[in-house]
């Protein structure tokens, strides 16, 4: 059990941490290659391209070919990191991820940025809220959603060491830094970042810092003890940690920047139904089956209810 996490005032986007980690990892690992589809300035693979131009392949605006090419590179012994916006890497090229990458168990890392509503002003066409569903339904695919810049670094080390296909969901907007160098990430492990007794908030990505903030407010203003679990590893899912916490608090809210259908909430619900016979209160907080729209990231999160304040409200409702 970790000590209570206080979100730092320092803010870094997970995509920025990704771009920097890629360069660091590639210095000692000659097999790492990177493919991008004309978005390297946005996905931050531009730093890798500058440092290792011979190992960087701009594939143009052609995601299907990019993903299948990466599968070939992987089968030839390389470790390809494939970047684009999550909308295109997982949506446009889903069938290539499924058949060229996953069905061949090709060692390709799909590291896609600009996932979720926090793309902001670009609007619904770019705000993918279906990618977790798309990726987790592919057999053998590892699905990771880091919560901050430090966790992104650790995730990058873990997926590089792991031999097989993986999806890493990254965001555009700057996020509070939650963790330090001591933070430990393992594929398939959830982290209890705030121990509590009354209610558990399970979250991934940007909603982890919202959950940590909600826990603080609930403690200070309402004297409620909230457990917060960061479930960065959506698949494989840490069923044991999830079930143990549910049996302790009996009240569970799952928060994610994704459609409530097909996301982390559904995975947690299934794990609980299969493993707990006790009566539990359960609520999913996500995008309620609607497309996004243009707006500032922080305004969109308020509009769609993906905030610490809404988590406080939902928690109090559940505890009454």
């Amino acid at each position, binding site marked *: 059990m970790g000590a209570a996490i206080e979100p730092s005032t320092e803010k870094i986007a997970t995509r920025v941490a990704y771009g920097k980690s890629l360069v660091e990892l590639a210095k000692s690992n000659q097999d790492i*290659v990177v493919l991008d589809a004309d978005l390297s300035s946005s996905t931050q693979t531009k730093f890798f391209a500058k440092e290792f131009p*011979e*190992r960087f*392949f701009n*594939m*143009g605006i*052609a995601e*299907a*070919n990019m*993903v*299948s*090419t*990466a*599968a*070939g*590179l*992987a*089968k*030839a*012994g*390389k470790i*390809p990191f494939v970047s684009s916006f999550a909308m295109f890497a997982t949506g446009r090229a889903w*069938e*290539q991820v499924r*058949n*060229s990458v996953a*069905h*061949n*168990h090709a060692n390709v890392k799909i590291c896609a940025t600009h996932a979720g509503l926090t793309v902001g002003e670009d609007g619904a066409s770019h705000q993918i809220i279906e990618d977790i569903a798309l990726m987790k339904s592919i057999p053998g695919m590892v699905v990771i959603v880091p919560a901050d810049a430090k966790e992104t670094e650790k995730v990058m080390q873990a997926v590089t060491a792991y031999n097989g296909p993986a999806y890493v969901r990254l965001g555009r907007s700057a996020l509070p830094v939650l963790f330090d160098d001591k933070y430990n990430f393992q594929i398939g492990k959830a982290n209890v970042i705030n121990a509590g007794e009354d209610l558990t908030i399970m979250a991934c990505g940007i909603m982890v810092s919202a959950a940590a903030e909600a826990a603080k407010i609930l403690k200070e203003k309402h004297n409620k003890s909230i457990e917060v679990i960061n479930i960065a590893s959506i698949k494989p899912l840490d069923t044991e940690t999830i079930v143990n916490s549910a049996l302790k608090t009996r009240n569970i809210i799952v928060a994610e920047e994704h459609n409530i259908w097909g996301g982390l909430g559904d995975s947690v619900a299934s794990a609980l139904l299969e493993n707990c016979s006790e009566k539990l209160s359960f609520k999913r907080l996500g995008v309620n089956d609607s497309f996004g729209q243009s707006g500032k990231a922080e305004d969109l999160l308020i509009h769609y209810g993906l905030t610490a304040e809404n988590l406080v409200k939902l928690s109090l409702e559940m505890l009454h």
Partner: protein
Amino acid sequence: MSNNFPDLVKVKEKALEIRANSLKMIHAAKSGHPGGSLSIADILSVLYFGGHLKHNPLDSHDPERDILIISKGHASPAVYSVLALAGFYPIVDTMSFRQLGSKFQGHIDSLKVPGVEMSTGSLGHGLSNALGFALAAKLDKSQRKVFAILSDGELQEGQCWEAFMACAHYKTDNLVAIIDRNRIQLDGCTETTMALDPLEDKLSAFNWETKTINGHDLAELDNALKEAYRVSEETNKPFAIIANTIKGKGVSFMEDAVAWHGVAPSDTDLEKALVELAGSK
């Protein structure tokens, strides 16, 4: 390992064995794709037995091997047959084709069959996969050659043209694409379904070196491959061989017949087909 004077008599015999075994497999499974397996039998035989594709049946991951990607994964009977004839496994094993638990899946599977480099079957992926191998070979400063056999119908997939563009952009002079131009796809003629011609002009416009040949003439195939290595080295362009073929080639009643794209031969059909193939030795 390139052989200047391949034994074309042996290559021809092996092509007939590929055809016969493919039909036996499809007959045993009561399902599969005879037409497109027969049309690439000569191409496969020249690659494996004409000294063009370095392969090692004792170590399918031999780093010294060349790479062949079969993008038309439904031609699995021909692929499984040529690999058996090349010594990767006993040919009798292939008779479990399409049965539950068999490694010989309906469409080729790289995780199950030694010698299959990529699982394919969903059309349009293979040239991109080959590009990946070609880029890796260049990074590794390897002399490895990469071949891709594509169907003509699959060129209707947009991804193929993304890949044609990218291969030329990255100057993959170590990659040869062989297009099985049998002019028939599931619903009928390629030109009435979704026209591909003028195909060679399109490929030239995409900055590829091209050559159109008779895909059943073993000497033409052998010469075209040798020309591909020589020309690509000079121009730094990828090379496409448009192999004009006949779907169902070698069995009179299957030739150029749309109906034999994905239908298994009956007992009588098989018997007649095997007699015809034996007679053409």
